[in-house]
Every structure is written in structure tokens, then in C-alpha cells.
């Protein structure tokens, strides 16, 4: 009980600081520009930490850390893409142009940037609706990640439902009051806490297992313990890649590595960060902070997730590999590993790190859902931007609506869902927005028709793929079974290849072909979009 009391005091102190930073954001928010893009004057370290802390959530640490316990260290290819694409390419290639074009066009949100670039209100409404409808899937995955850890740490002290409610109310409070300034100030604090927690976790794990080389060799020696079912799917051990072309290989590379690795470029809550700084200097400095931060987050989570197999197998209480020890639910592996293997004081630090990781991502998701409803749908589409004085008020209502949908989904989604739900949302965003976003920044010849055709192809193609082809989702959703009396219309390997491998190239092709044969935007408009580039 003393331990729980000490942990409670720690968390209350942390929440008070978060509350103060949220209040600071509220005091410094004077207008829509402040509320939606933090006044375009954010400090580079705050921007980079906020980007990183928003990018990395409990989904990455608990969900994908658990996935690493299943797939093994091959998941580090995702960390490589997280850094190379999610930081280097996102900041240097996309970020600088996004910032400039955002300034040129006075864009406050990701949908608004695309809409103003292609002079189409349809794009803003369409993108706003896609974000508002589908982001709750990802947001609820983050929520479940937080709840799983709270559940295992506070077991018998705090009701799961109460924890979920308190967590949601606190975040909704400071996001609604402080806008993006409140979100980014708290993100920076939360990012720093996460960094410390993960460094400790790596040091503890490697020390416990006798050093880097010994730990890796011990994990390699565990290969004969791979469960039969996984061997059948192509698993060759936790320090080996899955068998080339096997179901597990396609699942690892097409859904998880490509889906999340590429999908990060079109995350609306991340790309808006580039519009919050006043020059490219902040973006250059952000690359340094972001690269180290992401390595310390996903790199450590994936290595520790894979190595947890040694701990569970050698521990007399478990005596089996992580997946089996967690009863088949990979979302429980990291919480179980931390609570069972680490000293109590570290569980406190890590509890705080995870709470920070979840809150920093949830807050941005709620803010993005709210701005999609308030700015993109209400102000620009329904009221057509005329004499609309209530953007902040409607955005706050949008945040509340997004929170409610997310919490309901959090109760409804099944186990082992965190990594999958995240990958689906990232993949959906890539298929729907990436060709248009890329064309907006790099191709003056891309037309409004090309952009709209590509976005519709991406969304409808992804929906078709998940409803009728990709077996994991088509079986769960049941529409294919209902219409055609079989779980999927395709056969292996198509049933395990993710939508991003097929739909994204088609979406790009549609954007190019449609743009070549349809009316160009006016020269004046294009010059305005690309001025000062």
C-alpha cells in the first residue's frame, strides 16, 4: 500500500505540472492562430520533442514492443524507417516545404493546407471527415495501451473504467483550454520523461541479461522454443528475419514496417507541427533532437520487447516465451515484463513515462479531431468561412466529440489490437493523402482533379482491401462473408499483403494520370503557393 501511495503522490505531482503547462498554454492563446498552430513561433526543441512525443505513444512502446516479442528483432527495420523517413525525410524534405506553403497559404490544419494548395473546399471537408471518422481507431489504441499498464500496475487499487475516465478527462481539459500551445508545452515535458524512462529500461534489461552480446546470443539460442503455430507462419527465431514470403514476413513488412514507416509522413497531427515554427532553422535543429528521441523510443522498445522472451523463459514463475506467458495477448507483454522484472522504483518511473507517452499522443489526436470538425468541416465547409467567429468554441466541441467516440471504441476493441489499429490508420492516411501531399509540395502540375481522384482512390481502395481481401480484417468485419459466403475474395499471399503495397502505387498513378489530362491551376495561384521556395 505504501508503494501505491508513493506512486500516487508522484503521479499527482506530475499531473499538477501538466495542469500548470496547460494553463500556461491557455493564458498565451489569444486567437485562432495560437489555438490551431501555436502562433507559428514555437521553440525548435519544443517542436521536435512535441513531434516525437506525439509520434511515439503507448502504441509504440506497449503495442509494438509486444509485437517485437512476437516477431523478434527484425522489427528494428521499423525503427530505421521511423528515423530515416519519420524524422530525416519528414523534416528535411517535407517539413520545410510544408512550413513555407503553410505560411504562404495561411493554412491552420493539414486538410486546409491541401485544400488551399488545390483551391478546393471539397478536399478540406473530405480530409476533415476522414480524420474525424478514422482517427478515433488510432486514438483508442493509444488509450488501451495506457489502460493496460494502469490495469497491471494498480491491480486491485484502481478500477480500470475509473482510470480510463480520469485519464481522458484530464487530457480533454488541458487540450480544450490550452489549444496547440498547451499541447506542445506538455508534450515537451512528457517527451523528456519518456526519454529518461526508456534509457533506464534499456540499461536495466541489457545489464540483467549479461550485456549486449550475451543478451543477443541468449535470445538466438531460444529459437527452438518458438511456438509451433508461429513456425508454421515462417518464424525462424527472435534474432532472425521471418522466412522470406511467409505470412509472418508479409505481416511484418507490409503492415507494420511499411504501413507505419511510410504512413507517418501523412499524419495530420504531425505535419501541423511544421507549421508551428517561424523558419527552417527550427526544423534543422529539430532533426537532431528528433533522431535521438526516436532511436531511444522505438529502438529500445523493440529490442527490450524481443529480449523479454529470455526473461519469461528463464523465470520459474513463467517458464515459457513472452507470447505464451501473456496468454496470447501481445498488448500485455511489456506491462507484465516491467511489473515483474523491474525494481519498484523503476516501475514508478516507467509508469510515468508511459502515462506521458499516452497523454502526449492522445492530446494531439484530440486536438486534431477537434480542429478537423471545428476548422475544416464547420468553419470552412458548412459556414464557408464567412463571418464565422466561433472556431475555437466549435473546435472545443469537436475535441469533446472525438474524446467520447474514442473512449467508446476503447471499450469495444478486442485484445492484441494496439499495433494493428495503429498500422491500419497510418496505412489509410498514406494511401489517401500521400500522393496529394507529395504532389502539393513538389509538383506544380498536379491538378485539383488529380488530387481529388487520388484521395478517393486511396480511401475507397483501402476500404475495399480491408473489407474483401486482407483476411485478418475482412474476417473480423464480416461483410465479405455476408455477401460472398467466404472470408476473403483472394488467396495467399494477397490475403496477408497490406493495402499500402497495392493501393498506394495505384493512388499515385491515378494522381499522375488524372493531372496530366485535366485543367491546370492558374499560374498566379501556383506562384502564390510556391513563393519564397
Amino acid at each position: 500500500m505504501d508503494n501505491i501511495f508513493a506512486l500516487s503522490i508522484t503521479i499527482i505531482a506530475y499531473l499538477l505540472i501538466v495542469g500548470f503547462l496547460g494553463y500556461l498554454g491557455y493564458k498565451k492563446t489569444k486567437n485562432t492562430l495560437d489555438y490551431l498552430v501555436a502562433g507559428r513561433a514555437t521553440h525548435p526543441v519544443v517542436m521536435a520533442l512535441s513531434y516525437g512525443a506525439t509520434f511515439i505513444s503507448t502504441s509504440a512502446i506497449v503495442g509494438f514492443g509486444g509485437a517485437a516479442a512476437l516477431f523478434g528483432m527484425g522489427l528494428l527495420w521499423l525503427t530505421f524507417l521511423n528515423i530515416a523517413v519519420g524524422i530525416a525525410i519528414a523534416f528535411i524534405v517535407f517539413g520545410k516545404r510544408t512550413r513555407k506553403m503553410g505560411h504562404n497559404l495561411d493554412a491552420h490544419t493539414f486538410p486546409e493546407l491541401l485544400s488551399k494548395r488545390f483551391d478546393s473546399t471539397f478536399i478540406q471537408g473530405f480530409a476533415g471527415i476522414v480524420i474525424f471518422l478514422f482517427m478515433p481507431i488510432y486514438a483508442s489504441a493509444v488509450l488501451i495501451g495506457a489502460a493496460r499498464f494502469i490495469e497491471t500496475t494498480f491491480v486491485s487499487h484502481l478500477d480500470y473504467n475509473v482510470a480510463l475516465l480520469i485519464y481522458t478527462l484530464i487530457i480533454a481539459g488541458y487540450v480544450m483550454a490550452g489549444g496547440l500551445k498547451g499541447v506542445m508545452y506538455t508534450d515537451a515535458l512528457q517527451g523528456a520523461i519518456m526519454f529518461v524512462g526508456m534509457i533506464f529500461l534499456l540499461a536495466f534489461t541489457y545489464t540483467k541479461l549479461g550485456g549486449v552480446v550475451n543478451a543477443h546470443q541468449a535470445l538466438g539460442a531460444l529459437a527452438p522454443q518458438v511456438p509451433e503455430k508461429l513456425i508454421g507462419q515462417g518464424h525462424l527465431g527472435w534474432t532472425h528475419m521471418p522466412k522470406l514470403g511467409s505470412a509472418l514476413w508479409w505481416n511484418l513488412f507490409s503492415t507494420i514496417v511499411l504501413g507505419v514507416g511510410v504512413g507517418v509522413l501523412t499524419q495530420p497531427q504531425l505535419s501541423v507541427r511544421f507549421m508551428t515554427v517561424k523558419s527552417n532553422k527550427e526544423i534543422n535543429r529539430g532533426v537532431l533532437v528528433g533522431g535521438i528521441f526516436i532511436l531511444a523510443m522505438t529502438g529500445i522498445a523493440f529490442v527490450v520487447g524481443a529480449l523479454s522472451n529470455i526473461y519469461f523463459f528463464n523465470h520459474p514463475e513463467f517458464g515459457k516465451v513472452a507470447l505464451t506467458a501473456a496468454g496470447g495477448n501481445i498488448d500485455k507483454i511489456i506491462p507484465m515484463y516491467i511489473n515483474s522484472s523491474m525494481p519498484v522504483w523503476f516501475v514508478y518511473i516507467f509508469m510515468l513515462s508511459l502515462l506521458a507517452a499516452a497523454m502526449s499522443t492522445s492530446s494531439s489526436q484530440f486536438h486534431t479531431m477537434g480542429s478537423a470538425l471545428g476548422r475544416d468541416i464547420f468553419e470552412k465547409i458548412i459556414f464557408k468561412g464567412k463571418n464565422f467567429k466561433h472556431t475555437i468554441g466549435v473546435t472545443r466541441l469537436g475535441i469533446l466529440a472525438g474524446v467520447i467516440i474514442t473512449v467508446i471504441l476503447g471499450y469495444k476493441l478486442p485484445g492484441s489490437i494496439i499495433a494493428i489499429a495503429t498500422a491500419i490508420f497510418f496505412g489509410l492516411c498514406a494511401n489517401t493523402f500521400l500522393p496529394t501531399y507529395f504532389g502539393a509540395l513538389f509538383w506544380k502540375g498536379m491538378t485539383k482533379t488529380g488530387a481529388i481522384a487520388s484521395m478517393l482512390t486511396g480511401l475507397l481502395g483501402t476500404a475495399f482491401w480491408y473489407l474483401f481481401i486482407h483476411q485478418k480484417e475482412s474476417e473480423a468485419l464480416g461483410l465479405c462473408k455476408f455477401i460472398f459466403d467466404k472470408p476473403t475474395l483472394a488467396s495467399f499471399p494477397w490475403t496477408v499483403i497490406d493495402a499500402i503495397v497495392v493501393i498506394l502505387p495505384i493512388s499515385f498513378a491515378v494522381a499522375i494520370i488524372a493531372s496530366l489530362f485535366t485543367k491546370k491551376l492558374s499560374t498566379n495561384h501556383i506562384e502564390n503557393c510556391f513563393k519564397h521556395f
Partner: protein
Amino acid sequence: MTVLGIEDPGVWSAYLLCIFSALFCVFYGIANWNKGEEHPEDKKWVE
């Protein structure tokens, strides 16, 4: 060839690439630390 106790080159290359890509970010940030510093006509809409 075994690197850091890992036999599969598909895995140890990922491990090393993660570290090298993070180092690239560090060097890029340092090399461009003061670059990119910076319009009056845009200030108008802010006001």
C-alpha cells in the same frame, strides 16, 4: 558473420542502420544549426 551476437545479417544490419540513421540526424542538425534563419507581405495576414 556475427555482429553484436546476432547471426542474421537481415537483423544486425537493421540494428546498425538504426544507430547510423540517428547519427546522421545528429550531424545534420549540428551542420545546419544556424542555417535557415528567416516575409513582410505575409505579416499582414497575421496582423
